[in-house]
């Protein structure tokens, strides 16, 4: 099995290198095809491994070579394929293969085509390292690797100021979280003496609560960065500056879920510290509704979807925090499918509208882009969690978890969020595809995307539909070999049905409301006049709760100013000035006292005599003191007494 592991791991790397070698030369489709093929190979290998695991084969664990070894620290390049990682591998390889193929079409006209695929495959490689590593250090490698690739891909169109800015923002925000992660790793090492998952978790059983709590918190800080949890969430929306396939792959399906993966991976740690878990859950719930609320009014398709991703991540953390790790993982998988689908669909739309993102400038696209419309609609349905699509099985499960564990606040929040989710998803669906045509007047001539792109993304569609009811059973069987196998069943069947149906009705209601509101032929394009737009809530939401503004104004600016102060004021005016000052004092003393060398003979003679007289007087004084020492002492003692 090792060989498949290596294939799965390194195929994307080879692809990336191949594309990279062509990076300098001009666009060749081959640079897209080869990596896609290699990714497919990787996908096949992963599936074989999955099969191996499903058929009860033992966990595949290889140690490739030593990375660092000094003192008590020993870090190998070790990789493990167990139930958790194989799930992630499947998700990653599948989605990325699809996205690659899709991107061949999508990036068709971009002259940096080759570079794009180099980075995209590199990202997959890092993601594979992240999920397959058998120790925290390896995880961190992947962790930083995906960060790097996402930086390069967000800023892919580097001539756009906004893109590069967003790229740096993403990188730096992630760095902030990575510090927390690093500290978490240090804690693990100094308390368990190893970074290997197995030994580390085994050793954790015997550690005291406080240490474990700190570990949990710091590791989770790392997770917060990658998964863009509040307050480190702003970068995700800005990351939409990147090409849409990137958004689909990195900022929806895979990278942003790394945080969830980390928590799930460390379930043994977190199940030891339920209070931290509860915090995670609450934060998750908060983020869920917080992000959803921002999605309600936003006028940028991709940002809406990004916010919805954010809110779904909130769901996952809620589940993970409550100890339902397998649920979280399941939702992660399902979400990967339909969210990627949603993004790629949006990509089609953008393509059709030459990168126009404002849904209010679209409308009635359904006529020209039927396939895309169907795909996106179904994806949204799945997202909204309508039976029998994937979302229902994963998302409503989370609601149940919250309910069963008697965290009713979390439950209500999540429930309400479910409504919002449905609303904003179908808001854009309605605005894009239905209602009257608003784009031809603006001179857009939309057209459906290439066939092969549509074909490429169809697997996602299928999965979005069937993933729920087909896979749930087997998935549960598989992962619960590693994860706590807590079944979540509402005790009385009655409450269960009430809950389920209630949720469904509520969601469907929200969908209808959305359609009604935004399919109307006479919806007015927001132009800052309507009463609703001037309402405080709307302003709050459209400005993302003024958080980006706050960051820019109070953190970034002050950092910049402080740096300038440090440089101009402290470093130059104080530290350096002191040094030069000392030198200056010496020099000036020389300059000022050289006048005693007036060159006039009498002065010179005078100096000699002055010297003599000084010494003489000193001598006399000293002699006198010696002679009358006793008297002086007597006097002094008299003074003293």
């Amino acid at each position, binding site marked *: 099995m090792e060989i498949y592991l290596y294939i799965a791991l390194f195929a994307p790397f080879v692809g990336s290198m191949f594309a990279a070698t062509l990076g300098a030369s001009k666009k060749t489709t081959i640079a897209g095809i080869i990596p896609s093929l290699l990714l497919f190979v990787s996908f096949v290998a992963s599936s074989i491994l999955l099969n191996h695991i499903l058929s009860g084969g033992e966990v595949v664990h290889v140690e490739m070579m030593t990375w660092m070894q*000094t003192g008590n620290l020993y870090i190998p390049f070790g990789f493990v394929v167990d139930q958790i990682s194989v799930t992630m591998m499947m998700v990653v390889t599948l989605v990325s293969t699809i996205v690659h193929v899709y991107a061949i079409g999508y990036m068709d006209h971009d002259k940096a085509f080759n570079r794009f695929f180099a980075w995209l495959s590199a990202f997959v490689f890092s993601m594979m390292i992240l999920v397959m590593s058998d120790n925290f250090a390896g995880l961190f490698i992947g962790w930083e690797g995906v960060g*790097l690739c996402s930086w390069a891909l967000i800023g892919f169109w580097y001539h756009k100021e906004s893109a590069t800015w967003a790229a740096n923002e993403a990188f730096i925000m992630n760095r902030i979280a990575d510090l927390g992660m690093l500290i978490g790793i*240090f804690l693990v090492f*100094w308390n368990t003496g190893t970074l290997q998952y197995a030994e580390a978790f085994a050793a954790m059983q015997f550690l005291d609560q406080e240490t474990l709590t700190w570990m949990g918190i710091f590791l989770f800080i790392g997770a917060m960065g990658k998964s863009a949890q509040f307050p480190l969430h702003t970068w995700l929306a800005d990351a939409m500056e990147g090409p849409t396939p990137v958004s689909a792959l990195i900022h929806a399906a895979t990278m942003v879920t790394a945080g969830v993966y980390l928590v799930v991976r460390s379930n043994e740690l977190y199940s030891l510290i339920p209070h931290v878990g509860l915090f995670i859950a609450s934060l998750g719930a908060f983020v869920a509704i917080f992000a959803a609320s921002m999605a309600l009014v936003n006028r940028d398709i991709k940002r809406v979807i990004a916010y919805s991703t954010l809110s779904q991540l909130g769901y996952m953390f809620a589940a993970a925090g409550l100890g339902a790790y397998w649920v979280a993982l399941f939702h992660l998988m399902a979400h990967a499918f339909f969210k990627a689908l949603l993004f790629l669909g949006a990509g089609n739309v953008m393509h059709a509208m030459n990168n126009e993102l404002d849904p209010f400038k679209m409308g009635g696209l359904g006529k020209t882009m039927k396939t895309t419309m169907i795909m996106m609609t179904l994806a949204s349905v799945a997202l909204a969690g309508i039976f029998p699509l994937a979302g229902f099985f994963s998302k409503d499960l989370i609601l149940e978890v919250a309910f069963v564990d008697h965290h009713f606040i979390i439950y209500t929040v999540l429930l309400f969020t479910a409504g919002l989710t449905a609303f904003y998803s179908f808001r854009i669906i309605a605005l894009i595809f239905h209602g009257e045509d608003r784009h031809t007047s603006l001179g857009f001539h939309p057209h459906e995307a290439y066939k092969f792109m549509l074909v490429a993304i169809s697997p996602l569609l299928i999965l979005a539909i069937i993933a729920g009811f087909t896979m749930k059973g087997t998935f549960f069987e598989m992962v619960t070999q590693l994860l706590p196998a807590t079944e979540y069943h509402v005790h009385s069947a009655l409450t269960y049905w009430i809950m389920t149906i209630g949720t469904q009705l509520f969601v469907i209601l929200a969908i209808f409301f959305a359609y009604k509101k935004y399919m109307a032929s006479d919806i007015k394009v927001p132009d800052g006049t309507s009463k609703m737009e001037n309402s405080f809530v709307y302003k709050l939401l459209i400005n993302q709760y003024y958080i980006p503004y706050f960051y820019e104004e109070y953190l970034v600016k002050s950092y910049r100013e402080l740096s300038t102060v440090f440089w101009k004021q402290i470093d130059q005016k104080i530290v350096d000035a002191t040094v030069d000052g000392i030198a200056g004092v010496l020099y000036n003393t020389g300059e000022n006292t050289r006048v005693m060398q007036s060159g006039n003979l009498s002065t010179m003679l005078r100096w000699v005599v002055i010297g003599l007289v000084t010494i003489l007087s000193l001598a006399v004084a000293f002699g006198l003191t010696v002679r009358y020492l006793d008297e002086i002492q007597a006097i002094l003692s008299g003074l003293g007494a």
Partner: protein
Amino acid sequence: MLDNILSILIFFPAVAGIFGFMIQKDSMRAYGVSVATIEFALSLWLWFSFDSDASGMQFMEQVPLIEAFGISYIVGIDGISLFIVVLAAFFTMIGIASLSDTKNVKNMIITLLMLQMTMVGVFVALDAILFYVFWELSLVPMLYIIGAWGGPLRIYASVKFFLYTFAGSLVMLVGMLFMAYFYYQATGVWSFAILDWHRLILPENFQLWLFLAFFIGFAVKVPMFPFHTWLPYAHGQAPTIGSVILAAILLKMGTYAFIRFSLPLFPDAATFFMFPIAILAIIMIVYTAMVAYAQEDIKQVVAYSSVSHMGVIILGIFALNVEGITGSIFLMIAHGVVSGALFLLVGVIYDRRHTKQMSEFGGLASVMPRYATIFGLMLMASVGMPLTINFVGEFLSLIGFYQQSHTLTLLAGMAIIVGAIYMLSAYKKMFFGEVTNEKNKNLPDLSKRELLALIPLSVITIWLGIYPKPVLDPINNSVESVVQLMHDKSITDEAKSRIPNLVKDIVITRTSKEAQ
């Protein structure tokens, strides 16, 4: 031949430099390159014939110079110094190879060869005075390089560099004389041999004072905040080759000296001053990183970033455990490679446009893709991306210090944030965006000669990032012996508890203590 290879390594460049006067001007560059290459080959041979498993000194040579006063010519090498020597040889080679056309190149190359002698000498000297000789001597060529080939402020910069370091090291000299005197009192013979000194156990208050005396000398060289202000001038004014050597090798002398002198000689003082120095190091890391962010001159950014990274090295050294010290030594090499490469890269653009102001550039990524790629690689290495050479060092240094203090490590860890901030924004200013400046429209991409220097560096950056073992192992062995020595020598309980005891068997510890 092998038994005196170190002396050959030291004096071969010097002799070659003297012959250099006879070489005809046009063939000088070729001569320099070949000499440096031979030297590098020799250093590689040294590495090859170096016994990685031995922790002690190897290839020792000893010739008494002044018996009456205990000064002798002692050289030797262990895992700690080996790689810095190789690095020095390497950088002199590629430095000369990639030397862009300068006025009277002959003097430049001769000076570089002389500088190489002093650099190698510092790292292999095992006699305090010999060490001091090379330490001071290394100032002169650098003074000349900065002062003769530098920018408009070159004379101010060079003199400042010289005097600042000179003053610091004179205090250190007094410290050395004290040390020798204590040794004389203890044993009745004068000796400046470091290995002899290692056996000397001093009372704590002596340790504290001597530590401070040495500290001033080293801190100026490193340079540690607040003694760092000569560095921006030196780098800002120096020609590319000067900055490269300065950042890659000369700065390492200070940190190396900390490990060679301060730690084994004064373990208790080292423990005593651990936290103050750690705080200085953190100031270096964060404060200079912010200053770097404020710079408008790309070279200044790199210069300040060096200070910031040296902070991490210092932190690792004063972790006082194997992980930290090994990490810091590795980081010395890593930082040497990366910052050297960065200065070379800055030099590349400077040769093309004769300005280093970032505002002059922008959008270079589309004009000079190769340049942008290598720069990006080095940038990522410099911000400590895993699988690049820097990460190994930083990770180990920080993880090492974490054992001593959690909070301080948290603060020091901000290095990875602030580092990313200034580096990325600098990269953004230079390479991203539209090409606004007409002069940048058609700049030539990296030339063969430049690639010749940069490709190897890139390879090393990745290779040692993925597979640091061949370098880490020898370092680790030597560091372990140093740490054990410190533990055995230390007299205060504080130090005993802070410095790990590697020999778990208590009996062995006691005997080894008696041995000293």
